[in-house]
Every structure is written in C-alpha cells, then in structure tokens.
C-alpha cells in the first residue's frame, strides 16, 4: 500500500530533478573512479541479493523431484518443464485464477468507484467534521487484521457469506476504500483549483465539476488507486486463508499454501505455481510503475 509519498512527491520533483543533478554533479565532478567503483559494487551486491531468491525459485521450479530443493545440483541434468504442465493440467490453478480475478477486480472496482467522490470532497471542501473524518481514514490504515477478523468471521457466518467471493470483497473493501480515498485526495490536491473555478463559472455544480472536469483529469490518479487496491487484494493472506474453505474458491495466496500439507509437500509444483503467479503480476507491476510516473507528471494544467 501507500506509496502515496513516493508517487506523489516524485512527480513534483520529477521535472526539476531530471535536469539539475546532472548539472550539479558535472560541475562539481568530485567523484573519483574509486567512489564510482564502490557505488557499483554496492549496487551490484544489493541487486544480487534482491534478485537471488526469485531466481532460485525459478530454478527450483524446473526440477522434477519434490526434494530437489535440497539437491540443486541434480536439477542441472534433469531440467524439465513438466512441473508447469502438471500444474496447469492437474491442479486447481485455473479455479484459483478465476477466484483471484473475481475477488481482486471486485475489490478494485468498489474501492475506486466509492472512494473517488470522497477523495474529491476532502481535497476541495472544508466541512464540519473534516478533521475527524480524515483521522478516521488514517485510523483504518492501521487496523491490524486481528481486530476485525474475529467479528467479521462471526458476522459473515451469520449472513452466510463465509466461503463466498462477496464476503471476501466486502472485507477487502474495508482496507482499500479508505486507503483509496486518502490516495485520491493526494492526487486531487495536485489538480489546480482554477479548473474547478472555471467549471463553477460555466455553471456546473460540484458534482458536474467533479464528473466532467476533474475525473477525466484524474485518470492517472485513479489508475494508481486501482493498482494499489489490486495489489493489496492480491497479496492478502489472512482473511483469504480463513474465509475461503472450498478449494475451488481459493485465491492464489491460499492455493499456493495447499501444496504443503502435513503429509505431503510437493515443493516442485509449488515453485512452478509460484512462478506462474509471480510472472504476470510482476510484469504488471513494472508496466504500471513506469506509466505511473509519467502519468503523474503529466497530470493537471501545470506548465
């Protein structure tokens, strides 16, 4: 969650920073080759540390035996894609994919749609109770899962929503909706007030201003909000593990755990599934991350 700070502060600096450090460093030109080498050394080490566990997982997913993770040497000679074909054909992979998509997309849509007007209201209007409301939004960010999980479990079982997609979507909305409202407020703050005033002058009421002027301008912000709801819902473990009982409704976070039980641990299949899950999500992450920065700097009528 909440790279609010990263994503919103970067663009402000973005344009200036793109040019200034270059000038500054060139003028000073103090960094000797040794310091440069040290920088590269540290960064390369850090990159290896960041990369290795993921690479290792990919490597293990190619080994055919379930205990190959203890004998990585064997994998070199017996490398195979059998794990992947097995996972795709004989496990609940596609069921999990469907459940994950339903839950995640549902959460994302609800989060963004419900939060958008609120983000606008708290960005533009000061009303009695404003501070309390903002404090409430902040407060919900720090709810440990342990606070809501027990009462939610009781309420959901009373309503018969245990083991349903709707139940999980509603639960995820408790985190994503306030968070999205918070994040969108930050984005709306960067859209100049003059646009609202222009709309007001042309006879739009606040809803009209919001719908016709601000919302189209805020598309990158909405994308950020959607993206973070997506990631939050996708990576959630505790509620999904507790509330989804039938194995064709598992989300990936639960399905992946099901490979290791007390009796059997199919670690090779688990690794293959993990890779299959990670590749699209990470690709999406990188794709969006790039668009986010440029989209954020291009927003509004600045410049």
């Amino acid at each position, binding site marked *: 969650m909440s790279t609010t700070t990263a994503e919103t502060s970067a663009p402000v600096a973005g344009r200036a920073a793109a040019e200034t450090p270059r000038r500054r460093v060139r003028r000073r030109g103090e960094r000797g080759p040794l310091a440069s080498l040290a920088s590269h050394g540290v960064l390369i080490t850090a990159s290896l540390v960041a990369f290795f*566990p993921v690479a290792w997982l990919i490597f293990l997913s190619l080994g055919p035996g379930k205990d190959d993770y203890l004998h990585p040497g064997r994998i070199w000679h017996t490398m195979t894609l059998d794990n992947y074909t097995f996972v795709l054909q004989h496990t609940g992979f596609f069921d999990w994919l469907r459940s994950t998509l339903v839950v995640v997309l549902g959460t994302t849509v609800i989060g963004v749609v419900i939060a958008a007007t609120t983000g606008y209201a708290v960005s533009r209007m000061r009303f009695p109770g404003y501070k309390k409301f903002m404090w409430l939004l902040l407060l919900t960010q720090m709810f440990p899962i342990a606070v809501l999980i027990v009462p939610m479990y009781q309420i959901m079982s009373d309503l018969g929503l245990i083991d349903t997609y709707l139940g999980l979507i509603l639960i995820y909305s408790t985190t994503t909706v306030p968070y999205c409202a918070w994040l969108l407020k930050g984005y709306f703050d960067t859209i100049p007030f003059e646009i609202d005033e222009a709309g007001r002058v042309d006879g739009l009421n606040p809803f009209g201003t919001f719908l016709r002027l601000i919302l189209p301008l805020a598309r990158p912000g909405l994308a950020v909000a959607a993206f973070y709801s997506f990631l939050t819902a996708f990576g959630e473990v505790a509620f999904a593990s507790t509330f989804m009982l039938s194995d064709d409704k598992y989300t990936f976070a639960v399905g992946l755990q099901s490979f290791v039980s007390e009796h059997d641990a199919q670690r090779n299949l688990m690794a293959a599934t993990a890779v299959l899950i990670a590749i699209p999500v990470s690709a999406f992450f990188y794709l969006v*991350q790039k668009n986010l920065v440029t989209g954020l700097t291009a927003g509004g009528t600045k410049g």
Partner: protein
Amino acid sequence: MTVAIDRATGKRHGDRAPRPGRTGRLRRAYQKHWYAYAMIAPVAVVLGVLVLYPLVYGLYLTLTDANSLNTARTIGVNHIDATYKFVGLDNYRDILFGPTAYDRFWSHFLWTVVWTAVCVALHYGIGLGLALLLNQRLRGRTFYRLVLVLPWAVPTFVTVFGWRFMLADGGIINAALDALHLPTPLWLEDTFWQRFAAIMVNTWCGVPFMMLSLLGGLQSIDTTLYEAAEMDGASAWQRFRYVTLPGLRSVGSTVVLLGIIWTFNQFAIIFLLFGNTAPDAQILVTWAYRLGFGQQPRDFAQSASYGMLLLAILVVFTSFYRRWLNRNEQQLAI
C-alpha cells in the same frame, strides 16, 4: 460602472441584498456543505457498516467468553444457538496479568517491539543508503532501480516460499554456509534463528518501498541548497547531515510511521514462513490469529481482545508520534 450579474441567480451584485439572518446563514452553510456530505457518504457508509459495526461487535466479543464451542453455528441441518456469556474485562485481565501472562502476552509483546524497531531501522537505513547511491549520476541507474524493486514487485506470499526453500535445513543457504565452513543454524526450528530469519525476510521485502520513497524525497531537495552549502565550505558529510537529512524529514517521518504500522501488523511473512511451527517467533498479530483460528477450540474472545490491545497500542503510538512531530514543527505528509 459595469454591473456584475450573478449567472446563477441573475441578481445584480450592485444591489444591496437584505443581510441574511441566522436561519439564512444556516441554510447557506447547509447548502454549501450538502455537497461535501453527499460526496463522502459512500465512504462513510462503508466505514460505518464494514468497519465500525464489526469493531463494536468485536469489542462486545472481548467482554464475553466466546469460542468456537459456544457461538452460534450450524452443523448439518441443526442450528445451535450461542451460549457464551458476558464476563466483563476478564479477558483483558487474564491476558495482561493472569497466570503465565508473560509467556502468552509479554514475551510476544517484547519480541514484537524488537521486531518492529529492528525491521524499520534496517528498512530505513538500507533504503536510504541505496537511494543515495541511486541518486547519483551513474551508469545503469535505471537497471539497478528495476532490479532492486523486484522484492516489492513479486507478491510477498510467493517470495516467502522462495525463502522457505532457501532457509530449509539442507537448503541453499546452509549449503553455502557449510561450504564456507561456517556454522549452519536451523533457521526454521531454533527460536533465535527463526526470529533472525523473519527479520531478514521482512527486511528483504520492505527495503524497496523505503528506497523509492526516499529517492523521491532526495530528488525533491532543492539543489541550490547543496551549492550554497558547498560555497560555504561544507564537507560531504556536513552536506549530508545539514542538507540531505533535514530535506528528507517530511518524507522520512511519514514512511517511518507507515513502516512501523505495517511491520507491527505484518502477518503474511511470519505466518507463511513458519506455519504453525514456531510459537516463540510469533508477533502479536500472528499470535492473535493463532488463538482465534489456528487451534481447537478457537478462542474468539481472547483473539479479539488481542486485536483490541494491538489497535490501542497503535493508536496511542501514532498520537504520540504526531504530537512529537508537531512539537518539532514537522507535518506528516499523509
């Protein structure tokens, strides 16, 4: 001489309107805020129904002795009504001061504090170091950035399993340590090493966020400040100490607060890394979960009480943090 005409009402501004009375002002205030309230209504409803109601219900449960044997449940076609009863503050008293309270609560509390402090310090320190390195003009900067973000890009529940394979007895880490003739700890069995491993994995997962946030903060520092400092003869360390660090304060205090909240509430890493095997490495959140859902009978009341205590700790901490920041004339960026 031009007379402005209000487009909405068609009234001429030059005309003296009757001064609005008290009711008029109220009505105008209502009209003005009506939009705001209508716009926040959806979130307010969601918060009320999905957060406040369960919260109040949870609070009520903590005052009872509810567990999975006496709550309402349906077995087959038979519906069994709830039989739990009101016990007042007994749960809290038992958790905080009851027999073996140290083993059940305080030891986990201490470990949670250590865990949070160490993890956030490591996140911030390593994140700041990498951000400073990435903020230089450097060949391959973008490449490094992309690779370093990887732990954040891959979902945590995936990478934790990768770590589990690596940390397992006989896994790659111990094999490497063995090859170097270093001791090979039982990462996933021995309490100390379990904690060590948990902090290590969480650090690995949490650094990219800090790095990117602080990099954004570094880039927003005005470069003329560095030039001025240099003109005044400041050394590299002094520039870092008196320009960079103050410039990062606003971003830094925000990400530290977020980091503390997230680390304190971190569930997935410890839950997935150890499963049900490590009672002593559980932080309060995972411990509360275990009481409520990881054992039989499920102790709902105690679990909810832990949840309330956790929330109380966080709220108190955050209030003090904000007050402390305000006293130092800093504003939280969130």
